[in-house]
């Protein structure tokens, strides 16, 4: 397992406490200013504020690397992923869009 993935999984497992009535999501952001991919764990108890915990920043700013990482993460967790800042970009392996629609807060 590579080091980035290990860090993400470690922090994800620490933050994923499986609280009742709480939605957990992994947010992956393309940060074009820093040239990094940022990972966050977002969780929200029903009707409460959304909390967003930083997990890791990937310095290797290549989609092939990100895809490999996401694949590794998929094997570890069933949580849903949301992508922000990827509008128009496609996964290198199958040319599918990464992020469907641009969010209104972007």
């Amino acid at each position, binding site marked *: 397992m590579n080091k980035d993935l290990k860090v993400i999984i470690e922090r994800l497992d620490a933050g994923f406490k499986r609280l009742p009535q709480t939605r957990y999501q992994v947010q992956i*952001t*393309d940060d074009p*200013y820093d040239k990094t991919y*940022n990972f966050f764990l977002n969780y929200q108890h029903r*009707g409460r*504020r959304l909390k*967003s915990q*930083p997990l890791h920043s990937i310095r290797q700013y290549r989609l092939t690397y990100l895809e490999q990482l996401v694949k590794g993460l998929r094997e570890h967790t069933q949580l849903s992923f949301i992508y922000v800042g990827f509008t128009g970009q496609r996964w290198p392996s199958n040319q599918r869009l990464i992020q469907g629609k641009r969010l209104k*807060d972007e």
Partner: protein
Amino acid sequence: MNYQNEPHGVFFLIDNKSFYASVEAVARGWNPLKIALVVMSEASNTNGGLVLATSPEAKKHYHLQANVSRAREVPQDPQLVVVPPRMNLYIKRNLQINDIFRRFVANEDLLPYSIDESILDLTHSWRLFGKTPREVAIRIQKTVRRELGLYTTVGIGDNPVQAKLALDLYAKHDDDLIGEIHYSTVPEKIWTVDKLTDVWGIANRTATHLNRLGIYNMYELAHVDPYQLKGEMGLIGQQLFAMAWGIDRSQLNQRRGPKNASLGNSQVLPRDYVQQKEIETVIKEVGEQVASRLRHHHKQAGCVSLGIGFSYAASEADGRSGFHQEMRIAPTDQNAEIVAAVIRIFRRNWEGQTVRNVAVYTSRLCASTGLQLNFFESAKAQIKRTKTDHVVDAIRDRFGFTRLVYASSLQKGGTAIERASLVGGHNGGNAYE
């Protein structure tokens, strides 16, 4: 008023719109002006949580204030995002922003004023970047937005104080995020301010003092007899009077360092500390942290001070909110000597009150050029003790603070391990450098 002999220049005071909140929003791919986000520290000593920063949207909808609002005042609204602070990231962004500013001014004309504010003296260089200072301001704003994703507000003035007032009073409410004050517009821009506390440098106590003198707005402040004001308030009175007229004679490129540097740390404890042993553990830890910082700066301290703040209940019973005492010592940067001195101050003054706040400061700093030996121990033992401190520092620098801690830090009440990664008391970085 004849402003002819006052220094005329082009000064910008640039600050970041909701700095911490914006940095966190950008890192998540959100627009800092659209998202409702608060940066909240949930450390154990914040009594449930302290709001460090709020995005403009959150300010508007929930009327939250940075550094004042508590977690219990933040509504449980599903639209609101709460994130933990990352001080190291903000410091990094601040350095990047100042690097951008250096493309517009020479280094000596740039004065970083706080973590999110900088003063720029563009007197000599603004013509290189636009036809008017306002155009240059827009250009700087666009550069920062393009390269870092952050929005900046710019106050423009003929001198630094005008720029600061333009920023606080006008830029923050302007659509372009730019405000301007010049000598010619002082009457319409500064004297029209009705609330004294809106002005930089005037908070509640100063405002009350001015009220007592019959001064209730900036116009009245500008038209008071300056000699009378100086007689009543001293130098500050003179300074306030100058500000009311938009006068500031400081020269950015002639920096004045502090007359007497000091170095220290303080912390708010997560609960009431009652037992002497527990309190002394914390004092020892803070003392060691300060000593370690002295060594990193290659300084020795000739004076240590200890400040103790009581809990609310104890200060009501006692009548004082705490105590503070200084002590002169032979210049040193060693753990043992600094800790011994502060513990002595503590035992001399403490009478069993519950404690919530501990501060250790050192002053009368001098360059650490050698070790003053004494007659009462063998030289070998003294040198060995000094070396031990340095070896511990080196190990911590290399492997991290928590790799090597004193056993006392593991006792009940110790805070050093938990606080090792804090910056400015908040999450993010190594605080022992």
